């Protein structure tokens, strides 16, 4: 297990480094500089370029950037909020986005698991068909369609919940966006759980467990769900990705001051440092989740947990 974890961590670090390199190279290819403004004289541009170190050679810039990132320094924002540390921008916005993402995952997974297990237990019943239908819709329709609908009907027409984000509303402000984002999560989890549970419930070992006289909650949780969960957690990675993309749009719709909204602003105003920092944050977040999934996978599956340390070269 130790070796397994070490290998995964190593792989993650390598991936992250490659990503930083790719990001950096891409940045070098970007068209023009942010100071390509006709109002600035060439001298003024030169001053600005050297001020931000944009005249140094690419490798120098790269190593400076890596070193800075390790110390949490992502440089300064060029346009969104002039001369503000990107780290500061992130600091204010990251917790909001993480809270929104966390809420959505939690809400979606719990509801999805429940729906999937119920559908599998009542396989081929009306409940099963309803759950299947519901999850196909949830998987197919992008979260921003839900966001638009929720915001229009519950926020605008009925005015039950705030249509736009306001920090004073507390958790109420997150209700609509979190529900909108969790639809995809719920549908995906429900769909996957159902398939996995049906497969596990029909397996030979479940027959043996049943023939021992085990039934009810114990049967479902200790045996069925435990085995199914090994596969179910692997969808967490793709889910986080879809949440990230979804949050960009959903944060824009509800004007939530999170990193998604910041990303959209940065893209639209070519604020390279912010884009680079956010791309790094998203990648790091994703890699971290993937690593957590891999480790959890190992913990849940004794075939990996107890794999002989010398089994893989």
């Amino acid at each position, binding site marked *: 297990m130790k070796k397994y974890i070490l290998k995964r961590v190593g792989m993650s670090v390598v991936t992250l480094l490659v990503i930083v390199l790719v990001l950096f190279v891409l940045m070098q290819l970007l068209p023009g500089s942010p100071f390509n403004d006709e109002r600035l004289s060439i001298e003024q541009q030169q001053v600005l370029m050297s001020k931000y170190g944009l005249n140094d050679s690419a490798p120098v810039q790269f190593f400076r950037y890596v070193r800075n990132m390790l110390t949490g320094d992502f440089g300064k924002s060029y346009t969104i909020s002039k001369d503000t540390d990107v780290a500061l921008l992130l600091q204010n916005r990251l917790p909001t986005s993480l809270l929104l993402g966390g809420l959505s995952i939690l809400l979606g997974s719990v509801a999805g698991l429940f729906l999937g297990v119920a559908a599998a237990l009542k396989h*081929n019943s009306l409940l099963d068909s309803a759950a299947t239908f519901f999850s196909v819709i949830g998987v197919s329709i992008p979260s921003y369609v839900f966001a638009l609908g929720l915001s229009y009907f519950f926020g605008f027409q009925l005015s039950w919940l705030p249509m736009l984000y306001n920090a004073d509303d507390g958790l109420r402000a997150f209700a609509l966006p979190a529900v909108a984002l969790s639809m995809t999560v719920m549908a995906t989890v429900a769909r996957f759980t159902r398939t996995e549970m049906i497969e596990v419930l029909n397996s030979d070992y479940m027959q043996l467990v049943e023939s021992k*006289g085990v*039934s009810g909650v114990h049967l479902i949780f200790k045996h069925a769900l435990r085995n199914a969960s090994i596969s179910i957690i692997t969808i967490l990675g793709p889910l986080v990705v879809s949440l990230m993309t979804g949050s960009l749009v959903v944060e824009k719709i509800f004007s939530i001051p999170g990193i998604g909204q910041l990303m959209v602003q940065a893209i639209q105003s070519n604020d390279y440092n912010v884009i680079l920092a956010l791309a790094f944050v998203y990648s790091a977040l994703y890699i971290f989740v993937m690593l957590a999934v891999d480790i959890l996978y190992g913990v849940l*599956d004794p075939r990996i947990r107890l794999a002989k340390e010398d089994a893989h070269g």
Partner: protein
Amino acid sequence: MREKILEVRDLAITFNTSAGKVRAVRGVDLDLHKGETVAIVGESGSGKSVTTKAIMGILSNNGAIDSGEIHYTFEHEGETVTENLLDFSKKQMRKTINGKHIAMIFQDPMTSLDPTMSIGNQIIEGMRTHYKTKKNEAQKKAVELLELVGITDPESRMKNYPHQLSGGMRQRIVIAIALACDPDVLICDEPTTALDVTIQAKILELIQDIQKKTGISVIYITHDLGVVAKVAEYVNVMYAGKIVEKGTVEDIFYDPKHPYTWGLLLAMPDLETNTDKLVSIPGNPPNMAHDIVGDPFYPRNTYALHIDKKVEPPLIEVSETHSAATWLLSEQGPEYSLPVELEDRITRMKEEAKLYAAG
């Protein structure tokens, strides 16, 4: 005095599949007495596994019991009671019968253990559910069980997971799990089919040993008559969802009456027969999704009568213990003689048995 413990009457089971209704079991009678071993023999799809799954109450969801009764006699709270297991709900079955009174061993030990639970926990699970046995007591008993089924170093094996053990070992574990709550009946569904030949014999011996020690009754499902000869006292030959011949081992091996049984015997390899002389039964079992008219075996039967096309033969009694469902036994039936190869085979088997008894 033989004490009847299980009595199946007129059991019929249908499966709803995408190909239509499949009548997997079409009126099966079965008797099991205390301490005895009954074998059910037949090809795949003959309904033998389905019959025992109905006894266990673990039919898959698309299976429905059309008719029949399963009377089971057991000790409940100090009293001897006989109940129809088909009246029990799934929950009642799990609580009172499964594991506690009737336990089962499955065909493939590679897939029949929960991969995410340690061996020890899988063995004590039954005791903990049925008798609320304390954990350390249950563990002590589990170690004893592991010793009983011939696993060395049982204490450390308790912590192992299924993937760390070989197929033979896993089947021993499955047996230990089945025995954990001291059941009265053990159903073995082809317990050796998926194992190496050398291990097959050991597992068979183990089950026989356990039977001697505990006096448990065993239902043995197999397609291998060689296994039947080794372990069973009574034999039921099943074909297309019905029992076509039943009797003692001697009846079936020395005086078989049904052409299907003849086919099975001829297809069984023995030391004297050249493998290229082994005769297989031509054709395939009938598709059970279709309605069956007449004797389902007639298309494959070289001894088929004209009536076989129209009317399915009932079980006709040959002796008190022996009966077979073939029109050949009818009073109006024609004269016939066994296939020559089979006559030879039976003579040889009888001689072997004599040698065996003398030696």
